């Protein structure tokens, strides 16, 4: 990176190991050049990533909009169940779903499922999960 000559220069200096400080040390070690090029490379890398994201954001957004429309239609239909049996308390339901989900995860590995709790009004402890970089649903 940067230049092979720079590298050689740096190596030579390190080998010589003359203890120095202040501007002399900075210049001897090409500190200003390295710092400048370094931050430029970091920006370059992240700008490229940002551009790529923007690009496929653009393409996917259209696809997603269509999908979401269809989904919301389907969900509305699904919201009116054909048959409503006995009322089961929400807490029981959540516990049972969690148990089943856990059982599957521990024993039936290859099948992938995901439990999602609809956000309701009740504040239950299951909604407090927090992990690195986890999304939180936006406030309505």
């Amino acid at each position: 990176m940067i230049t092979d000559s720079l590298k050689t220069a740096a190596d030579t200096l390190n080998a010589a190991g003359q203890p120095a400080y202040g501007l002399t040390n900075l210049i001897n070690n090409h500190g200003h050049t390295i710092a400048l090029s370094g931050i430029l490379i970091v920006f370059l890398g992240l700008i490229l990533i940002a551009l790529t994201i923007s690009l496929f954001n653009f393409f996917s957004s259209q696809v997603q909009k269509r999908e979401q429309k269809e989904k919301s239609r389907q969900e509305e239909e699904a919201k009116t169940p054909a048959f409503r049996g006995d009322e089961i308390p929400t807490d029981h339901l959540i516990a049972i779903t969690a148990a089943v989900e856990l059982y599957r995860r521990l024993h039936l590995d290859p099948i992938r499922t995901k439990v999602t709790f609809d956000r309701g009004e009740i504040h239950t402890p299951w909604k407090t999960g927090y992990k690195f970089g986890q999304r939180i649903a936006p406030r309505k």
Partner: protein
Amino acid sequence: MHILEKMVMTTGFANLTWGSAIMIVVGCVAIYLAIVKKYEPLLLLPIGFGVIVGNIPYNPSLPLGVYDTVANGASQNSVLSYIYWGVKAGVLPPLIFLGIGALTDFSSLISSPKSVLLGAAAQLGIFGTFVGALLLGFNGLEAASIGIIGGADGPTSIFLSSQLAPHLLGPIAIAAYSYMALVPVIQPPLMKLLITEKEARIRMKPPRVVSKTEKILFPIIVVIVSSMIAPGSLTLVGMLMLGNLLKESGVTDRLARSTGNALLDICTVLLSFAVGASTQASVFLTPKALGIFALGLFSFMIATAGGLLFAKFMNLFLKEKINPLIGAAGVSAVPDSARVVQHYALKFDKDNHLLMHAMAPNVSGVIGSAIAAGVFIALFQ
């Protein structure tokens, strides 16, 4: 009684130096902060315990400490030296990144490309401190390792130091983790100084939902782009993104679970403990360590300021303003600095939740620091 007398003279109590005593107290303080203050307990607790273990005085002829390796006979190597090898050879940090990748959700980043740049701006802390360390008289390799403290990513700091300046690994790691724990103390004053109340009140649109396809493409693209630009970042970014792909693919859940739990936890314990145990008073209590701690603080401050100011600068050109506070989250210290932003913003507007928005520069800063580390590796190794 003659032998008993001698025996007492050879115990650790008799060999105790002021240095070891101070370091044992330091270890206890770290444990206290971890348990009572809940400052990064997953790291500070084993580090603190390691500091205690590493500073128990013993007869130097015994192979007990992390540095007790003798090339010409495996039986002369201490067990701690084998664990420390995982740190020194740079193996544990990438494995930790594998596990972290399997736990990280990059969707906030994917949904807001602009925020990526804030993660770049905060890396000013790294290069600023690199210059600062050179001014203080450190050599290039040392200066690079010290600068990376400003990246606020433990594994990245340890990885780079292990490759470039292993003799400074202890103080650099301790400084990095200490300041990461102190982010809630370091950042708010800088926010107050640089951000006006009006800016702090800016609300941002909720980020869009990110599709599974995007989440799968993201790690692949990031590893190609960042390692093309800075090949030295290949190891760290590669492992981070492998973990993330395992998580997001939806077909390798059991791999993501094991790497994100068992592997991550075991490597974290061993790395933190070994790093702690490497802080033997004789190598730790030196003027250099003092310099490193001073530069580390400087580094975090520059990084924070860099992120905040760059966010303000971006607002000059953006129609849809971003809240410049989220620039501070670019220093990484995932997820602490994002939480600091959230709390700070709530002081001005109790309904302005920035956490999600701050996660974007937060994780972008991880990639940025890894690229910066890659630059130094390419240059100095």
